[in-house]
């Protein structure tokens, strides 16, 4: 039985992702650390070195150090170390067109911090090897809520006791990771400026690309911006029992969908040497995964970066 520690950046993921994966790999242990501050809420620059010391990359630095810290010497020895680490982050709309900036930035941040972290020669080599073989980073695109639209059960739990209006996204004919919803009433509602917006108000710009906003709209009884959907309640419920195989299954589609999610499952399957429950190996072919996160590159810093 392997012990897989999850590093997440959202409250929903912190509470539910471990249990969600446990259902796919029931013979293994999944544990979430308390969540970290995310680093994709702003557009990431293409060049890490130039922007490294800018304040908006501070969270990226912390995340990279946390990843290294899982295997670096000098940590607590009275607690079990993970066998594997799975770090997760949302692409978010800011980076939707350039997810490569995220993986590049994280890889470069890990590389840089490995270089500045003082470790004895053999321990440094060991840490690098552990990162290469036991630590992965995966993306949810554009965010975890996108996958709820590809699983009727998750959608029902997210919109419980039921959506206020018809959902106009047909996941059977689209890729939820390229989330675009055509819903005239949803899109026609005027946006509310940020300074006047309450937290979780779905009336944002570019909302047709934002799964969480659409969930907010679908559960907003009075269309006043106050949605019933709460990430830490409905989102947790939806994610905890998400049908990942159903989300990534190609079905009748000509091309593979949910490639980032598929990458994560393929990586986990390889890591734990067992396919996820409900998915066959042919659904996890490298060619159907997103090339940024699976299969692993030759000169890798992490398992898959």
């Amino acid at each position, binding site marked *: 039985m392997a012990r897989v*520690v999850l590093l997440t950046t959202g409250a929903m993921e912190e509470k539910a992702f*471990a*249990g969600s994966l*446990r259902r796919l790999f029931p013979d293994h*242990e*999944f*544990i*979430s*650390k*308390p969540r*970290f501050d995310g680093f994709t809420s702003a557009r990431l620059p293409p060049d890490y070195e130039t922007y490294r010391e800018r304040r908006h990359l501070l969270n990226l630095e*912390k995340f990279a*150090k*946390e990843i*290294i*810290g899982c295997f*670096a*010497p*000098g*940590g*607590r020895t*009275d*607690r*079990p170390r993970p066998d594997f680490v799975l770090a997760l982050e949302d692409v978010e709309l800011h980076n939707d067109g350039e997810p490569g900036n995220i993986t590049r930035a994280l890889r470069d941040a890990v590389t840089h*911090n490995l270089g500045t*972290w*003082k*470790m004895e020669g053999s321990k440094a080599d060991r840490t690098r090897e552990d990162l290469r073989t036991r630590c992965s980073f995966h993306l949810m695109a554009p965010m975890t809520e996108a996958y709820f639209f590809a699983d009727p059960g998750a959608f029902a739990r997210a919109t419980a006791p039921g959506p206020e209006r018809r959902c106009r996204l047909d996941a059977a004919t689209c890729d939820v990771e390229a989330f675009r919803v055509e819903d005239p009433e949803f899109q026609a509602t005027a946006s509310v400026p940020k300074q006047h917006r309450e937290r979780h108000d779905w009336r944002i710009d570019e909302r047709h690309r934002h799964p969480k906003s659409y969930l907010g709209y679908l559960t907003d009884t009075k269309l006043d911006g106050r949605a019933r959907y709460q990430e830490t309640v409905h989102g947790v419920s939806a994610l905890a029992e998400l049908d990942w195989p159903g989300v990534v299954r190609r079905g009748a589609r000509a091309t593979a969908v949910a490639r980032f999610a598929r990458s994560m499952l393929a990586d986990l399957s390889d890591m734990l040497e067992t396919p996820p429950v409900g998915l066959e190996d042919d659904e996890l072919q490298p060619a159907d995964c997103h090339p940024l996160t699976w299969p692993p590159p030759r000169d890798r810093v992490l398992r898959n970066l």
Partner: protein
Amino acid sequence: MHLAFRAQAFGPLNRVDWTVPPGVSAIVGPNRAGKSTLLALPEFIRISIDSSVNDAVKQLFGGTAYFRNLNAPATSSPGVGLSVETVAWDIDITIAAGAIAPLCAEQLKRDDRVVFSRAFGSSEGKDDSDVKRISLGPRVLPAICSETAQQILEQKPEVFARDNKKTFTLSDLEFLEKSQIPQLLVDILAGSWLASTSIHFASYRTYNYRIQHLLRYGSTHSSDTALERSGENVFPLLRNWRDDSETEHRFDFVISTLREAFPHVKRLDFEQAGDTVTMMIRDRRWPDRKIPISRESTGLITALLQLCAVASCKRGGMVTIDELETSLHPHAIRVLIAAFRRWATEHDLRIVLATQSETVLDQFHDDPGQIYVIEPKQETSPRSLTDMFDAEYLAQFSLGDLFSHLEFGSNGDLDVE
């Protein structure tokens, strides 16, 4: 000066082996782990020596019901101990019929040599020769030594005369040992010296400051030179410090630090009506007006009390503060801790802060060895953070971040799904 505390089956603490470093240190741990109890241990010892163990249990635990660790075996009794340099005192506290039994077993050591001991229930003690029996009163050994030393000093001042000093240090003991003074008397002095050290232990709990009462009713006029645990005497205390050349440096410390933490403060004025003393603030923004302290923020008043708690401590003493961070902005926390460090260095103090604050912990980034951790499954508490992690590992992270991510000072390992 080496200072260490020991305890077993003491409240929620299984076993304590706590060497308190000089300067400012922090104690961190989850709720109900025993931080406050650990901070109360020095005061417990002080009251035990100054008054009695029974009084210490009553004042700090409200009685015996929750004094003994609930997980301790039925046959084990609580105990406490104190080491100051090479002098050590340990007492096993027997609880009988819900009360503290008199004449508990105890021993006083010097350089690991037992100089005096008492068996449980005995009013006689033995000296280190184990031959001579000494009649002992009901008080604990350090208190008896203190009383005896005082009596000898009054009756035969020439015995201890050295440069006409009436207080002793360890080097004085070593000097006397080489002289013709009988070993017994030197050992009595050693016990007395340990007792004299303990009277300089003070503990403050932020949540015990009676701030609303203070703001509403002011302070009663007094000649106090140390802050009460409730903080209610802070106004006459500050005025007394300010008006005495021997103590005005304490007032200066408080006002200068307060100005740094709260830049609008220009000066403090005091007013008295009858027996009631209160304070007014001169605000830089409105220099012609005096603002009553009751109009100030809770944060400023809390900071004032914390500064007075530290400034009250005698040279070479120890002060503990539980929950320093309450009501304080991170800037104020940083300013206070930096000021505490300077003051502790100048006055040879030990200042211990019990905290749950990431900001407080981050102030120890350059000296993580000053952080001590209490966790529920520890056999012995507290544990230095640098015993748990390599310093190089800790240098990579914010200590506050590690704490908030449950890497230390939490209830246990991460939850398993």
